């Protein structure tokens, strides 16, 4: 009776729903963002050794993003599971690939906003010089890394959302997978910032790694998300 909506449409509806919830609750802007800023400041202080700091300046943004990722992903699925909405989606036969893409897209938008503001902060704090070529590298790196993080987050978030009351498992699962992303993104960012004698050209291979990672998890997610949220 009901028409089966295609993936793109489901993805759009799901992403719009997640973003609208964020517009209503302002969780990312009002709570996660200050937290991320603080993580950056805290690490910078703990490593108050000039050499080290200079070297890891770009990394701090990614570190802060990493810890914010846990919160944002958890929130993204708390919405779905607190009243069984995910079950309703499953029963209604909503395309799971659409759900995956939609939730990833919403996560992507939220993370990108976060990173943008963190990078502005970092640029001001560390007075990084950014050439045009560096900017291109940086933007590509941020896009690829964030896509990867959004895919992984959505995938593993879905995995733990199935197991009720086991949200504490999420950080454990995410950390080892995401750590390489954060490291690669850090290297690429350092190259973009030319910090610690890094060379711009060195950054592109890392971006390649990030792109491969994003592609892998994007495809992996598309193929396996349905199986994960199944009972």
């Amino acid at each position, binding site marked *: *009776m*009901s*028409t*089966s*909506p295609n993936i793109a*449409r*489901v993805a759009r*509806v799901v992403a719009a*729903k997640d973003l*609208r*919830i964020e517009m*209503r*609750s302002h969780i990312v802007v009002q709570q996660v963002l200050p937290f991320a800023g603080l993580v950056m400041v805290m690490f910078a202080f703990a490593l108050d050794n000039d050499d080290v700091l200079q070297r890891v300046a770009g990394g701090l943004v990614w570190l802060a993003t990493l810890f914010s990722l846990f919160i944002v992903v958890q929130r993204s699925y708390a*919405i779905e599971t*607190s*009243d*069984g*909405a995910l*079950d*309703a989606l*499953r*029963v*209604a*036969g*909503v395309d799971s690939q659409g759900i995956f893409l939609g939730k990833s897209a919403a996560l992507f938008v939220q993370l990108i906003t976060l990173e943008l503001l963190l990078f502005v902060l970092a640029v001001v704090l560390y007075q990084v010089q950014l050439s045009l070529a560096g900017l291109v590298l940086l933007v590509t790196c941020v896009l690829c890394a964030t896509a990867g993080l959004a895919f992984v987050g959505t995938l593993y978030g879905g995995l733990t959302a199935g197991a009720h009351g086991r949200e504490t498992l999420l950080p454990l699962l995410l950390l080892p997978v995401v750590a390489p992303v954060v490291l690669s993104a850090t290297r690429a960012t350092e190259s973009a910032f030319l910090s610690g004698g890094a060379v711009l050209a060195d950054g592109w291979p890392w971006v390649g790694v990030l792109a491969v990672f994003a592609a892998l998890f994007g495809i992996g997610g598309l193929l396996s998300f*349905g199986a994960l949220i*199944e*009972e």
Partner: protein
Amino acid sequence: MDALSTSIIDLRDVVAVYNGYPALAGASLSVEKGEIVLFQGPNGAGKSTLLRLCAGLLPVERGTAFVLGCNVQDERERIRSRVGLLGHNNGLYADLSIADNISFWASMVGASQIEIDAAMSRMGIDGSLASRSVGNLSAGQKRRCALACLIVRRAELWLLDEPHAGLDAKGRDEIDAILREASQLGATIVVASHEIERAQHLATRNVAVVAGRVQERS
């Protein structure tokens, strides 16, 4: 639809297990198109489990389960969009308004604004209520919203777990009328309920669920 069976639901000796606990211990049941079936039975008998299994939310451990002519085990993606479930939970987004929740489902299934408005007015949700956040509603108002979302989904098989719970007297009458109407339009309806007097008027057939098995009645 499968030629093997024209029943909407066809369960044969189904066993379903939660962490080693057999919630269903060999249930057999067949439901024909247009019926309104009432599940009744003591707490923990397996009514909710039966409904969740028919909705494809639970794996079938043993036996065979066909719903809308498809095997729930292997061909779930084919049946799902045709099944609507209202469980003990409402499945609503607390941060969104009633109107947003309903239009989310409407855009999922491609329902029009007219259908949305019809569903809302059927469930007695008026303009000022519709714009309030679901998280700020009373238990019965949430249940009404969940039912409106379900109506918008236009399923062929409705699985309702205690649909009357939390609704006031008027709401109970409304939902009964909606279910009767849907069944006349060809939908099949399965209701689990403890409010036997009320549900019995509605149902065309009574089924007793006891200790994970189905015992047909009158």
